C-alpha cells in the first residue's frame, strides 16, 4: 500500500481493500433489485412537480370556497324579513324621482302588497 497522502495517483492496494470492504454481499442480487425498482417506477416530468405543488393548494381553495358559500348561505338565512325601509325602496319609481310626496293610497297599496 502506498502510504503517502501526497500521492496524486490512486493507491491500488488501498483501493482493492476498500472495494473488498465496501462492496457488500450478493452484488448481483443488489443490481437486480435496483433494475427491478427502476423498471417499476414511473418516470417523472415537470407536470408532476406542478401537480404536487397544486394539489394541496387546490384542496385549500376548494375548502375556502365551500366555507365562503356556507357563510353566505347562513348570512342570507339570518337576514331579517323585509321591513318598512325595504318596502319604501320598492315604491313605484315615480314616487322617488318626482320629488313629490306619494299619494297616501298609493303608499298604502305598496305596503299591503309587501313590496
Amino acid at each position: 500500500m502506498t502510504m503517502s497522502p501526497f500521492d496524486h495517483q490512486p493507491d491500488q492496494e488501498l483501493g482493492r481493500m476498500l472495494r473488498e470492504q465496501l462492496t457488500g454481499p450478493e452484488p448481483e442480487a443488489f443490481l437486480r433489485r435496483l433494475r427491478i425498482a427502476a423498471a417499476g417506477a414511473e418516470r417523472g416530468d415537470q407536470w408532476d412537480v406542478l401537480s404536487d405543488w397544486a394539489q394541496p393548494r387546490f384542496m385549500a381553495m376548494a375548502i375556502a370556497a365551500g366555507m365562503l358559500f356556507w357563510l353566505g348561505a347562513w348570512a342570507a338565512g339570518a337576514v331579517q324579513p323585509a321591513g318598512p325601509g325595504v318596502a319604501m325602496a320598492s315604491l313605484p319609481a315615480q314616487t322617488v324621482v318626482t320629488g313629490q310626496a306619494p299619494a297616501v293610497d298609493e303608499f298604502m297599496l305598496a305596503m299591503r302588497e309587501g313590496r
Partner: protein
Amino acid sequence: MDDAELARAAAGGDPDAFGHLIDRCGLAARRAARAILRDDDDADDAVQEGMLAAWRAIERYDPERPFRPWLMRIVVNAALDARRRGKVRQAEPIVDTLESGGLGPDRMTEASLLRGKIDAGLAQLPERQRIALVLFDAEGWGHADIAVALGVPEGTVRSYVFHARRALRASLGTLAEAMK
C-alpha cells in the same frame, strides 16, 4: 454506448438503457453509500432511493457533462439525507459480511484484523473525506469528478483525500505491511 449515450436513451424513455447504467454504476454507488452510512441495509435503501430519483430526473441530465458524478451526487445526497433524517439502523461492523477468499487460518485472522482496522479507520473520518477517499482510491475517479459529486471545489477534494489517507495510515499502522 458510453454513459452519456445511455443516459440520453434513458431520457428518451428506454428503461433498458437505464438498467445498463445501473449495472455500470450501482456497485460504486453502493460502496459510497456504505462508506457514509456503514450499514448494509441503510446503504442499499439509500442507493435505491438515489437511483430512482436519478431515473425520474434523467431528462435534466446534461449529456455534455460526465454522467457518473451527476448520478453519484444524487446517491450521496440520498445517503446524507437518510443520515440527517435519522433513518439509519444501528451500525454493525460490516466486516462480518465479507468472505474469507480461501485464505488459511492465519491469513484469515490477519485479513479480518485488517478489515476491522479499515472499518475503524473509515469510521473516524468525516463523511466527505470518506467519500472522497473511496471515489479516488477504490473507484479511480479524478479529483474533478469527485468535486462534482460532492459539490465542492477541486482543491477541497485534494485536501479531503490527503487528510483521509493520513488518518487511515495511522489506523492501519504496520498491519497492512504485514499482509503483503
